[in-house]
């Protein structure tokens, strides 16, 4: 890397800047704020919006600072009447084709276009609308697109193509007809989209948003016949505070529990309980695969975007996926069987609401195979298909929960700290770190090591798998057997490990893959903006919570032990097989060609071992 520094003059004073830095970087380092719109840290610099323009001495026109680079002696001006006029005009041109019903938009008050228009002093639009109205894309159960609100910044395409290597969306048409499209306008729900929601996370406006389920949940909460319980993913406790206006990464576990009670949930439970359960099942699955010559490497299956990615792009490698359901789905299955029996509540009246940092979880909850609790009760109670229910009824993202809190007037800052309910609210430190990349691996190693060696770990922290590098690896010596493991986040990095597997060159026994950058804490349902600095703050909070937990290994969670004793009997047992494990579909790259009525291939894969 070129580390040479050059000197540039910004607004009359001299500043050092790395050679090859963009003008934007140089200005930011020097403390000058240049407004941007299409630029997105580490994701996109398309130079399409013309908002970040600056004056450079000797240049014929204004330069876009996100792409133009500095050179020795460059003289830059970031603020002049000419610049302000140009920026304002760029935004006005965008506003000409942008709906002005901001008050009714999900992104109201969290919209970069809105903020920019306010900051730049736009007081009206001189230009008339030139584009025809476009249809909404509501084909996906996870994210909805409104092309009318799109400003063609290209960030969603950049994240989908470059970070996730999915390319579900791209540009189509030319000139005035240019828009963001799926192949042949089939809609996100019909093409090879993983529903990761990173497009929604980087969209500066309300053109791509999560499918909002807040109305349905409010309705259930006011139904006296229903017992509405909630589970919260690890990443929510480090995200919801931020969404409610606190500092990024604020750890608000106790206030979150209190707020959920005030919202009207009968019981406030924790997905982390199910995360501990996942470790028990997945840890034993790994040990079984190692001992019985099963398919290796085994890959984690907690991240539903990754699962759908594998089903579309690597259908012949599905046997490598752990058969374990994700913690969200394990929770639903356990709540509507074990907890229902324990409390005597009719499982048909239990409504399980998940709060997830994830849009793909909305899809996962609607996978047809995710009705294990109903299958469990059906024969016992002689219920018919009309009684059928899903294990998880509704999935809210962090952003949706924040909207519900605001709508009901829950004041986050003045709430006391409260505890989760028993027994599905009890968890260990191992479960907390599920929310960060490397966390599931670390949690699994804490348990697998002790189960295999029979000796307690002296240090539970496997720091080699922590941190934000895209690919991490580690070796763990378990009684003379060295187990090589790898951790990847983002689907681009997942590809590297999967290609290695398909070439038969994977040296690993166990791999953790998380769909989103940074893991769940950087999920598509998290507060906007989610930058690398914010991701680090959220991760730090999760590891702090883990360090402060009295129990830090999943197999030492007494409530998990009780669950096995009273109900499941043993990891990988018959009951676990029915309630906690699942199978995958070969979806391929043209999912619309499979079967009729949108039905997928019947060929499912149930990995051995």
């Amino acid at each position, binding site marked *: 890397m070129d580390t040479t520094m050059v000197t540039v003059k910004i607004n009359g004073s001299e500043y050092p800047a790395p050679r090859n830095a963009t003008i934007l970087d140089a200005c930011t380092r020097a403390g000058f704020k240049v407004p941007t719109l299409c630029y997105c840290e580490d994701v996109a610099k398309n130079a399409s919006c013309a908002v970040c323009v600056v004056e450079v001495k000797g240049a014929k026109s204004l330069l876009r600072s996100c792409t133009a680079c500095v050179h020795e002696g460059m003289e830059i001006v970031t603020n002049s009447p000419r610049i302000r006029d140009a920026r304002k005009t760029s935004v006005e041109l965008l506003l000409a084709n942008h709906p002005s019903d901001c008050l009714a938009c999900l992104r109201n008050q969290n919209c970069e276009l809105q903020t920019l228009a306010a900051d730049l002093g736009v007081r009206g639009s001189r230009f008339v609308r030139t584009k025809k109205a476009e249809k909404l894309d509501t084909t996906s159960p996870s994210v909805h697109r409104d092309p009318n609100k799109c400003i063609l910044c290209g960030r969603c395409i950049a994240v989908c*193509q470059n970070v996730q290597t999915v*390319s*579900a*969306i*791209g*540009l*189509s*048409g*030319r000139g005035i*007809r240019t828009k963001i*499209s*799926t*192949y*042949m306008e089939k809609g996100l729900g019909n*093409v*090879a989209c993983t529903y990761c929601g990173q497009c929604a996370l980087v969209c500066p406006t309300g053109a791509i948003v999560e499918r909002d389920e807040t109305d349905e949940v409010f309705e259930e909460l006011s139904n006296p016949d229903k017992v509405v319980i909630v589970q919260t993913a690890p990443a929510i406790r480090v995200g919801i505070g931020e969404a409610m206006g606190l500092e990024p990464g604020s750890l608000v576990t106790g206030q979150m529990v209190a707020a959920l009670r005030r919202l009207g949930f009968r019981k406030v439970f924790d997905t982390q309980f199910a995360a501990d359960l996942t470790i028990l099942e997945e840890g034993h699955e790994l040990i079984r695969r190692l001992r019985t010559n099963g398919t290796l490497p085994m890959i984690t299956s907690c991240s539903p975007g990754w699962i759908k990615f594998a089903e579309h792009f690597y*259908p*012949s490698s599905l046997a490598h996926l752990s058969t374990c359901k994700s913690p969200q789905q394990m929770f639903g299955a356990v709540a509507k069987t074990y907890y229902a029996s324990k409390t005597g509540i009719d499982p048909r009246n239990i409504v399980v609401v998940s709060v997830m940092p994830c849009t793909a979880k909305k899809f996962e909850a609607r996978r047809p195979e995710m009705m294990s609790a109903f299958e469990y009760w059906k024969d016992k109670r002689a219920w018919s298909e009309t009684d059928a229910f899903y294990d998880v009824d509704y999935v809210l993202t962090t952003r949706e929960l924040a909207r519900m809190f605001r709508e009901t007037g829950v004041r986050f800052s003045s709430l006391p700290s409260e505890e989760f309910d028993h027994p599905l609210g009890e968890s260990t430190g191992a479960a907390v770190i599920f929310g960060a990349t490397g966390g599931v691996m670390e949690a699994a190693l804490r348990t697998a090591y002790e189960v295999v060696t029979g000796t307690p770990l002296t240090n539970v922290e496997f720091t080699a798998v922590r941190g934000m590098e895209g690919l991490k690896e580690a070796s763990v010596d378990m009684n003379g057997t060295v187990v090589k493991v790898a951790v990847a986040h983002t689907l681009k990095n997942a590809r590297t490990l999967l290609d290695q597997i398909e070439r038969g060159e994977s040296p690993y026994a166990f791999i953790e893959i998380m769909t989103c950058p940074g893991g769940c804490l950087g999920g598509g349902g998290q507060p906007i903006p989610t930058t690398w600095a914010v991701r680090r703050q959220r991760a730090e909070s999760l590891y702090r919570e883990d360090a402060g937990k009295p129990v830090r290994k999943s197999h030492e969670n007494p409530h998990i032990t009780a669950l096995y004793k009273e109900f499941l009997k043993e990891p990988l047992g018959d009951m676990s097989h029915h309630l906690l494990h699942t199978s995958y579909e*070969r979806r*391929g*790259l*043209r999912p619309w060609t499979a079967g009729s009525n949108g039905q997928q291939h019947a060929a499912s894969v149930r990995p051995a071992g």
Partner: protein
Amino acid sequence: MDGTEFPTAEEQEIDEIVQQRAGTHGELLGILEEVQRLNDARYLPEEALERVSQRTGVPLSRIYNVATFYSFFNLKPQGKHTVTVCRGTACHTKGSRSLLDDIGLMLDCKKGLEEGEPLVTTPDRQFTVSTVACFGQCALAPVVAVDGSIDGAMTSAKLQKRIGRLSKGRKRP
């Protein structure tokens, strides 16, 4: 999977085109150009695009991007004959709007043209009518190209004759 084992004749042709072009500069444009030539209706059927994606590894969204960007590529079957009306400034002032309206009436495709479709093909697939921003033949305004050959100083009567000759034997709707 995805039907690679037993390709149809069309698929084999596409595979050969991809193979010949592999690794060349602007590979995708050349491939799509040749694939469009494979069928008489001069368009890129969905199955063909999907085959190209499969063989080149270029994502479908990217292929769709290229196929919709260039007006040369068609995603719908084209008529046997093409009529292209210049809608540039010079031709407009010389009455190209009413020529377009007349064509709409002559070929019974007025509705599609009025809705601003960039390309309208008659239901019997005999004619595809389109507009162009400028042919660069402003001195001859108004200009209309029929089956690729440009005719200047066009009048409604001349057009009627030319189109009439081409539609001889064509069933009236």
